[in-house]
C-alpha cells in the first residue's frame, strides 16, 4: 500500500519507512513557532522543566503579532516576557514590532518553512504551511514547551481526505471561496482529526497566496493539517524565498495511497462564497444572502493579508470611496507586503478611498484590538472565524469572505458581489 504526502513526511521524521493512519509515532521537529498568546504559557511550562537550552536556537520562531503593537498593559507584560526569553535564549528568529508580520504569512515569506518539513506552532492556523507541501499543525502551550525542549513530539498519523477540484475558477472566485465552499460542504467537523489534501486542476492554477489561504482554513473543518502536493509553483516560491538555505523535500502521494474519503468537485461555475454568522461552515453564495448592511470591513489576517489579496481589493477600490458608514481597515500581513503595497501604489488607493491602513497585526480578527465591534454591529471580514464574540461584543456579527467581496461590500455598505462594483 502506498502512502500519502502527509504520511511520507511524518514517516521520514519518525525515522520509519512506512506509517499508516492511526499509528502513534514520535517525530523530529524542524520548527517550533509561538506568539504573544501561546508563548507566555509555553515559557511558564518550559521553565518548570529546568532545561538550560532550547533544542535549536535557529528553529524556534517567536512572533509578537496578536496584541501588538501592545494593545494594553497586560499584553505589554506578556510581550515583555517573550522579549526577555528570546534574548536570554538567543533565539535567532524573533520578530517584534517593526520586523513583525502575521506569523503564518511571515514564516514562509522569510524562508523558514521548506517543503517536506514538520513544523508545530502555538496557533491553530499553523496548518497554513501545508501550502508549501510541509506538514504543519497547531498545538497548545504544553506541547510547545516539550517541543522546544526536546525537538520532537508524539503524533497520531491522521487519515487523509482527498479533495479534487476540477475546472477553471471564474474571475471573481479565489482560493478563499474554494475553501469556504469546502467547509460549507463537509461541515466544521467534516475533517475532524484528518488531513485535507487539496488537489486537481483548479488547485494547480492557484497562486501560492491562494494556496496559503486554503490550507490556513483547514482547521475550520477540524483538520489536523491541510496540504497541497508541491508542483512548479511551489518550487518557484520556495526558490525565491529560501533565504535560510533550507533543504526541501518534495513529496507526492502515491497513486495507491489510502484515503478515508475522496471528494471530486467541478468548480467552474462556483460563485463567490460567504460564511454567515456564527460558523465558518454556514456558507452561501454571496448572491443569495439578500440585503445585509455592514458597519466594518476588514481586509487582512493570516488568511487573506497577502499581496494578491491587497491587489484584488485595490483593483475594486481604485478611484472609488468606501461607504461613509463602513470603517474599512486594511492590514498588510507582513512588513515586506506593506512595503510592496506602498511601491505599487496600493496603499495610496486605499487611503484615497477612505480606508485605514494598519501595520501588520492579528488585532481585529480575534477581537483583540484595532477594530473591535460594538453590540449589534456587523463586519464583513477576510479572516477565518466568525464565532460568537469573535470580533468583539457577543451580539456582533462577522461574515467571512474573500478580499474582493469585502472590498465590494465596503463600497456599497452592504454585502455585495464584486461584479456589481467593477
Amino acid at each position, binding site marked *: 500500500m502506498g502512502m500519502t504526502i502527509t504520511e511520507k513526511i511524518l514517516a521520514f521524521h519518525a525515522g520509519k519507512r512506512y506509517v499508516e493512519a492511526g499509528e502513534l509515532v514520535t517525530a523530529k521537529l524542524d520548527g517550533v513557532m509561538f506568539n504573544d498568546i501561546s508563548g507566555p504559557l509555553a515559557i511558564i511550562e518550559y521553565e518548570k*522543566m529546568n532545561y538550560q537550552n532550547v533544542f535549536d536556537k535557529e528553529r524556534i520562531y517567536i512572533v509578537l503579532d496578536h496584541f501588538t503593537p501592545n494593545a494594553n498593559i497586560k499584553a505589554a507584560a506578556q510581550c515583555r516576557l517573550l522579549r526577555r526569553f528570546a534574548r536570554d535564549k538567543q533565539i535567532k528568529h524573533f520578530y517584534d514590532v517593526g520586523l513583525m508580520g502575521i506569523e503564518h504569512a511571515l514564516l514562509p515569506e522569510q524562508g523558514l518553512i521548506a517543503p517536506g518539513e514538520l513544523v508545530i506552532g502555538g496557533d491553530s492556523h499553523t496548518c497554513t504551511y501545508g501550502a508549501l507541501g510541509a506538514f504543519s499543525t497547531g*498545538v497548545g502551550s504544553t506541547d510547545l514547551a516539550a517541543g522546544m525542549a526536546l525537538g520532537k513530539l508524539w503524533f497520531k498519523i491522521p487519515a487523509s481526505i482527498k479533495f479534487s477540484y476540477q475546472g477553471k475558477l471564474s474571475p471573481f472566485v479565489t482560493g478563499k471561496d474554494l475553501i469556504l465552499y469546502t467547509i460549507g460542504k463537509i461541515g466544521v467537523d467534516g475533517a475532524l482529526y484528518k488531513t485535507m489534501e487539496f488537489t486537481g486542476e483548479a488547485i494547480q492554477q492557484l497562486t501560492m497566496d491562494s494556496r496559503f489561504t486554503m490550507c490556513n482554513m483547514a482547521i475550520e473543518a*477540524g483538520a489536523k493539517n491541510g496540504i497541497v502536493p508541491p508542483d512548479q509553483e511551489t518550487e518557484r516560491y520556495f526558490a525565491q524565498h529560501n533565504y535560510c538555505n533550507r533543504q526541501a523535500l518534495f513529496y507526492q502521494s502515491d497513486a495507491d495511497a489510502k484515503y478515508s474519503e475522496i471528494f471530486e468537485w467541478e468548480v467552474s461555475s462556483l460563485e463567490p462564497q460567504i460564511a454567515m454568522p456564527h460558523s465558518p461552515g454556514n456558507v452561501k453564495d454571496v448572491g443569495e444572502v439578500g440585503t445585509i448592511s455592514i458597519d466594518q470591513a476588514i481586509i487582512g489576517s493570516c488568511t487573506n493579508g497577502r499581496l494578491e489579496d491587497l491587489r484584488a481589493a485595490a483593483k475594486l477600490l481604485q478611484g472609488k470611496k468606501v461607504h461613509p458608514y463602513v470603517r474599512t481597515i486594511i492590514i498588510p500581513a507582513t512588513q515586506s507586503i506593506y512595503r510592496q503595497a506602498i511601491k505599487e501604489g496600493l496603499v495610496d488607493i486605499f487611503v484615497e478611498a477612505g480606508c485605514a491602513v494598519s501595520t501588520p497585526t492579528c488585532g481585529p480578527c480575534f477581537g*483583540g484590538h484595532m477594530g473591535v465591534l460594538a453590540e449589534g454591529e456587523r463586519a464583513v471580514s477576510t479572516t477565518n472565524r466568525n464565532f460568537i464574540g469573535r470580533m468583539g461584543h457577543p451580539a456582533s456579527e462577522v461574515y467571512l469572505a474573500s478580499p474582493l467581496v469585502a472590498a465590494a461590500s465596503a463600497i456599497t455598505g452592504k454585502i455585495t458581489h464584486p461584479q456589481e462594483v467593477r
Partner: protein
Amino acid sequence: MICEGKVWRYGDNIDTDVIIPARYLNTADPQELARHCMEDIDTTFVVKVQVGDIIVGGKNFGCGSSREHAPIAIKASGITCVIAENFARIFYRNAINIGLPVIEAGEAARAIKHGDVLKVDLGGGLVENKTTGQNFSIQPLPGFIQAIAQAGGLINYVTEAEKK
C-alpha cells in the same frame, strides 16, 4: 478518579472563543481566565458553577483555536471533567496536558440533561446519572492520563516522575 457534580449542558461545536474569549488572552493566570469562562454564551456559568461540576457537550467540543487557556479556564472554574460526543483535536490534547479529564461518550453526551447530577468513575469506566438513574459505560481513562490529571498536568507529572 471519581468526579461527582452537577451538569452544565452545552450543544455542538462549542468553540474556544466562547470557552474563553480572545479579548481575555492577555493573561495566563488561571483564576482570571476562569472569571470569563463561557461568558459569551452563558453569563450564569461563572456565577453559579460549583467546584466538582461537570460540562457535557455535543460534537466537536473545543473547536477553533489552539489556546491552552480554554481547558485551563474550564478547570480553574472548578469543573472536574468534560464529557462530549467528540472533541476537536487540539483541545483534546491540551486538556489532557493540563490535567483536565476529557471523555468521549456519544450516548451519555446525548442523554444527559442540564442540571443532572453525575457520578463519573474515570478509571472504572462508568457514568451514573443520579438524577435519572441511567448508567452509561465509557472507555476507562488509562492510568497515566488519570495520573497526569492528579499531578495537575503533563509537565508536573514528568518533573515529579524525575524526582522519584
